[in-house]
Every structure is written in C-alpha cells, then in structure tokens.
C-alpha cells in the first residue's frame, strides 16, 4: 500500500470505520438531527443527551464510507463530557484541519488522524458530515442538514 494511501486511511480510521463506537440509538437523547450528503447518498442520525450545558452522551446511526463512519465515531468520543458550547470550537478546529493549511489547535487529540483528508477535496464532506449534523442537533433547529 502506498504511503499516501496510509496517510489518508490511517489505522485509527480503518478501525473506527470497521467498528464504530457509540453506534446506535440513544434513549436518553434530548437533541437529534439528521445529516445527508447528496453527493454520495450517505445519511447519518446524531442523538445527543445534553444536561446542564454538558454533552453527557452522543450516539449515531446511519451508513457511510470508512471516513464518514470513523469521523462520526471519533467525534462522539471527542464530544462526550464536553460543554456543549465547546463543540462548536472543536468543529471549527476540525474543519480547519481538513480544509485549511494544516494549522490546528491543540484540542483535537486523536482527531488529527483526519489531516490526510485535506489532500482529497472530494472526501472533505465525508469527514465533516457528522460534525455538521451534531452542530444542528445542538442548535436544535430540527432541520435536516446537508453538506451542500
């Protein structure tokens, strides 16, 4: 396998793509949103339980490629336990990571495995679908979000 390919599909991404964490419904959720990528037909439902401004739990459902599934999976881990207002900042940093010039803050932790996506503009939407969706859930406007 070429180095470029490994750079994109890092082991963490392959692992979370195969075995997504926090996958399934969330009974205690009080925020929901659906996300849709019309380019590939991928759909994701994100369920969030927010209490006292803290994200207590996040789970997701849907079907997507390895990158979108891994992104959703790692996102649920990154957000759990964080203040809801920090989600937006984290998404901004993540967005910068996958579309920007490679500078990112120090909050991203494991999420930096998505740095390789920057080289593949057609896959950026795969990596950001779950993030757009969780943002909509936290804003609670009830609208389906699309990547378009």
């Amino acid at each position, binding site marked *: 396998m*070429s180095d470029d*390919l490994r750079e994109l*599909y890092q082991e963490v991404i392959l692992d979370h793509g195969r075995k997504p964490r926090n996958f399934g419904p969330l009974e205690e959720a009080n925020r929901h949103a659906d996300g849709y990528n019309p380019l*590939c*037909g*991928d*759909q994701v439902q994100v369920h969030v339980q927010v209490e006292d401004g803290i994200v207590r739990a996040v789970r997701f459902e849907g*079907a997507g490629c*390895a*990158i979108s599934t891994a992104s959703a999976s790692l996102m649920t881990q990154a957000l759990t336990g964080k203040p809801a207002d920090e989600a937006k900042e984290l998404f901004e940093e993540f967005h910068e990571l996958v579309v920007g010039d490679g500078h990112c803050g120090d909050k991203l932790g494991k999420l930096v495995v998505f740095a390789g996506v920057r080289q593949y503009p057609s896959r950026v939407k795969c990596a950001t679908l779950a993030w757009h969706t969780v943002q909509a859930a936290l804003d609670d406007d009830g609208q389906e979000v699309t990547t378009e």
Partner: protein
Amino acid sequence: MNAVQQAVSTAPGFDVERVRADFPILRQQVHGKPLVYFDNGASTQKPQVVIDAVSDFYAHDYANIHRGVHTLSERATAAYEGTRDRVRRFLNAADKSEIIFTCGTTEAINLVAQSFGGQKVGAGDEIILTGMEHHSNIVPWQLLAERVGATIKVVPITDDGALDLDAYAGLFGPRTRMVGLVHVSNALGTVNPVQSMIETAHAHDVPVLLDGAQAVAHTPVDVQALGCDFYAFSGHKIYGPSGIGILYGRRELLEAMPPWQGGGDMITTVAFEESTYAAPPYRFEAGTPHIAGAIGLTAALDYVDAIGLPAIAAYEHELLAYATAAVSELPGLRLIGTAPEKASILSFVLDGIHPHDIGTVLDFDGIAIRAGHHCAMPVMTRFGVAATARASIGIYNTRAEVDALVVGLRKVQEMFG
C-alpha cells in the same frame, strides 16, 4: 476519405492498441501508475482528431454563425450546419431539420418536456417513465407534471435489472400522453428493448422519447428503424466535446411545437406587438450555440463511424463479459444489474465496503471509476443500496486494465476486510 477514416480503416478488425494511441490523455500516470480510465459512463476521453478539430476551428475559422456576410462567418456556419447533417446521417434521421443542437441530453429532454409536454400534457394526464431513468429523464417531467397537474407512472425493474414489460403494457390508459425511456441504463447497463416498447406505446398513440446518452457510443442507432419520436444524446459521452448535445424530433411533431427559449436566431420577425418564430430546427435554438462543440462532434462521429459501431459493440461486449466473469470471482462482490442485454456498465457493491472508499483506493492505483448513486437514486432504492461502484467500459479499455481493476479490488478488500 479523411485522415481519421484512413488511419482506422487500414487496421484489420478492431485494434485496441491503435485506438489507445489516438487518445493522448491515456499516456499519463496517476499516482505513479498508468491511468486506467473506467469512468466512460460519466464522460469519455477525446481522440486527438477531436482535439485538433476544435483547436483548428478556433485557430482558423471561428466566427459567429448565421450572421455575418463575411468569410469567417460563412465558414463557421457551413461547418456548424455540416454537423447537423453529420448527426442526421449518424442517427439515420429523414431530414436534417429534425436535428436540434442543445447543450446536452439534459437540455434536450427539458426542451421536449417544456415545449411538447407543455402542449400535450394537461391536468389528469399521465406520463410513463421507467424506474431506471437518470434524474435528467425524471425531474423535467416532474416539473411539467407539477405545473399542469399530471401524474407520473413508473415501469418497475425486475431483480436482474431489466424492465417489467408486462407491467409497462399495463400502465397505458386513455390519459397516457408520453413515454420517457432510457435506451441504455447508466446505473445498470441494461439495454432496453426499445423498439418493441415503442411499438407498444404507438399502439396507444403515445409518443416516446428515448434518452440515448449512454447508448450512442456503444450501439448503432437508427431513429427511423426504431420509430422513436424523440431521441436525445450528448457529445461528451461519444468522445466529443462537453456542452454540445442533440435532440432528434420527428418533423411533424417539431413543426407543431411552440418555442421554449426566446432569443436571437429562433425568430423570423420581432416586433413589440408580436414576434414570429422560425421553422424547426432554429425555432428551438435561441442564442449563440457551442459552435466549436458542434465542430468537435463531427470529428467524434467521424472517428466512431470509421471504426464502426458494430465492431465497437462487439469488442466492448466481449470485454464486459470478461470483466463480469473476472469480478464475479471476488468474494462478497454483488453485481447490480445482471440483465441478459447489457452494454458498457459494471455496477457493483462489495460487502461491508463503501463505494467511495473503493473509488479512492483504486485511484491510488491510477484506476478511475465512479462511486455514488449515478444520478439514478430510484435505482439505488430499488436494489437497497445507497450507492454503487461503477466501472464503465469505453473503446480504449483492455483486458489488462480489467485485470488491474481486479487486483485493485482485492487490495481494497484486504484493506477494509
């Protein structure tokens, strides 16, 4: 005999290496591997003769058409109108006034839906489409149906990806006004039995539009033998430029149709009290068209005809059979579209692996395929998938490239398995 005909006809039979040499884009590496271009269903590459025709036209003969009395305008007009006659010959239409230039298949279908449909389809009427149409042969009819209050009936797809012809025959009623039918499915590769389906429609006095976008590069088309009322195709899917397309319409139908876009070139006289409209085909061609695109289309049709569509069809058919057998060896691969009559398209899913990941990994091996819903979301729904991976064969593909695809797919399975 022009240079193209000479170049190709001196080769005995179908010589794929000779064909490949005509396409400069194929002489490159992608990610360090020789380019393997299997995305012909989306768009085809251009032979040098097409590139030269467009470039020479801009270098020597370009001007606007149907206008000036000057030399360049006359040259440009003659070349442009020459393409109209070239397309007439290609489709075996009766008259060149039946050939309308559009910017592509999509615009051609919108033209028919708005002009012909707007005139013939009213509240309570019905339009028959099939479940395997490209979005461009669905949405124009939905827009019409919403506007006039008509309904759309859909011919179902069988499990192997053919049309259910009994169901089709049963959809006709006294309010049926139009049939829109894809000649070759872009998502499944199915070649539909269009001739008998047209006969069925005509027995009910219903006209038929054929979407030939995915057909013309792979099978000979004779609109008179088919008896179709409208036929649409795009230049870019038959080795010609993008931005140029064709609508064939039977003359008596075109003559009765109102204009759909207003502007220059489509009128006889203009006054603020009233304007009068030109006869077909000009009535449907407002504004300055893609002149160089038409010039390139002539070169593309010359190129294809010099090799011969029967020879192309035979070669591609054999290669598709080879590819079908080769990929069927892969565990967990499911072909989407296994109708007995197919052309060009190999649509498939791999168990547990998303088509986008397949497409990205293959790209690292220099292999270009399409991954997605192929603008045929109802087909995806029918087969219970969100998307498929699609390798689509063109004139320049080889068995060695199919072998490379299979090696690439094994790599994909190792990586994600």
